[in-house]
């Protein structure tokens, strides 16, 4: 079969179309890597991670210092095991505490790190021991209502 320029253009068109589909499937739909050049990973166990998602930011004093690389369920402790990928230029002490916060009232959730006083720094593969779970709004409201009801009962 002879080849014409039109064939080339149509081929290019089809390749672009399929490429766009691939981008939609991989980049928009799922998958995709974390792009911090130099990083180290630490893990932290949380009782409840709320709506934390992979690739959510890790912040310290409000500055983005890394990303959530992986979230798994820890079968032994029945907790969520969160892997944090931190930028190498920000070292944290070994007694750093990690907590899950929400930006704004209904905003997305992120991991907040607060450095401690220890002079030994976290290394690749270390585990953050002091953690604070996400605040679940429903529980909070439930607690509030429960307290309110208890207060009302005492007054009478």
């Amino acid at each position, binding site marked *: 079969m002879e080849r014409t320029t039109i064939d080339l253009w149509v081929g290019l068109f089809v390749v672009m179309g399929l490429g766009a*589909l691939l981008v939609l499937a991989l980049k928009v739909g799922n998958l995709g890597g974390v792009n911090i050049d130099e990083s180290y990973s630490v893990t932290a166990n949380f009782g409840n991670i709320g709506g934390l998602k992979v690739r959510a930011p890790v912040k310290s004093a409000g500055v983005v210092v890394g990303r959530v690389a992986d979230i798994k369920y820890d079968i032994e402790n029945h907790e969520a095991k969160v892997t944090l990928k931190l930028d190498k230029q920000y070292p944290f002490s070994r007694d750093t505490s990690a907590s899950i916060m929400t930006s704004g009232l209904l905003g997305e959730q992120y991991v907040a790190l607060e450095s401690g006083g220890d002079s030994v720094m976290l290394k690749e593969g270390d585990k953050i021991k002091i953690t604070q779970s996400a605040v679940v709004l429903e529980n909070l409201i439930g607690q509030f209502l429960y307290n309110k009801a208890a207060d009302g009962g005492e007054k009478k």
Partner: protein
Amino acid sequence: MPSRIVKAVRRVGARVVDGVWRLGVASRFLLLTLAYSGTSFRRFHLVIKEIFSSGVLSLIIILVSGLFVGMVLGLQGYNTLQRYGSAESLGVLVALSLVRELGPVVAALLFAGRAGSAITAEIGLMKATEQLSAMEMMAINPIARVVAPRFWAGVISMPLLAAMFSAIGVFGGYLVGVKLIGVDEGAFWSQMQAAVDFHQDIVNGVIKSFVFGAAVTAIALFEGYDASPTAEGVSRATTRTVVTSSLAILALDFVLTAFMFRGEG
């Protein structure tokens, strides 16, 4: 006075009967096109030539409009979302609206204007200059040789164009949202990836654009084939193609959306 009313009723009636008649002819035409499609696949270079003229030549308008639609979505979405402190959901908003609705629908509307009108004008002119009759004289079936390849080219091109529209639209939203306004990049992509489901959203969008592609090309081909063989007739047919296929796209979109996303939170 009564004769006036009678005339008006007669006119309406004639219009309705004419419309139903045309619909019947159009259905028969579509069936004939499908029945004579064999040639298109045996001689695929015919289809490739048509993919070039309706798909490749529509690329520029699709890509540029997609970019701008995505950028506008980024700006407008940010304005509303930041009031509720959830500007990070911008990625979700841009991606879902593009992949589910705007990609297939706007790409199909542009396709109707850019390629559909060209198809109608071309076939209408072929009819006006009696090229189609000449083919029949030479025992060449004009539906198999002229109509069917254009139909399949449209069906193949449309999903590819819609996918490109959505992809470049998401990129436009990213440019405005992340690079210009400064929404967190990780949150933009991560929330988008968490919310966009491959089967539920992307595959359904592709199915939509397949249906739109078939509808637009079928309407364009029929209008061209049915045009009165005069300069005025061809121009009218071209206008009708754009109007009818735009309406068909929007109506079909409602029906498909009702089927695909019914009962979803």
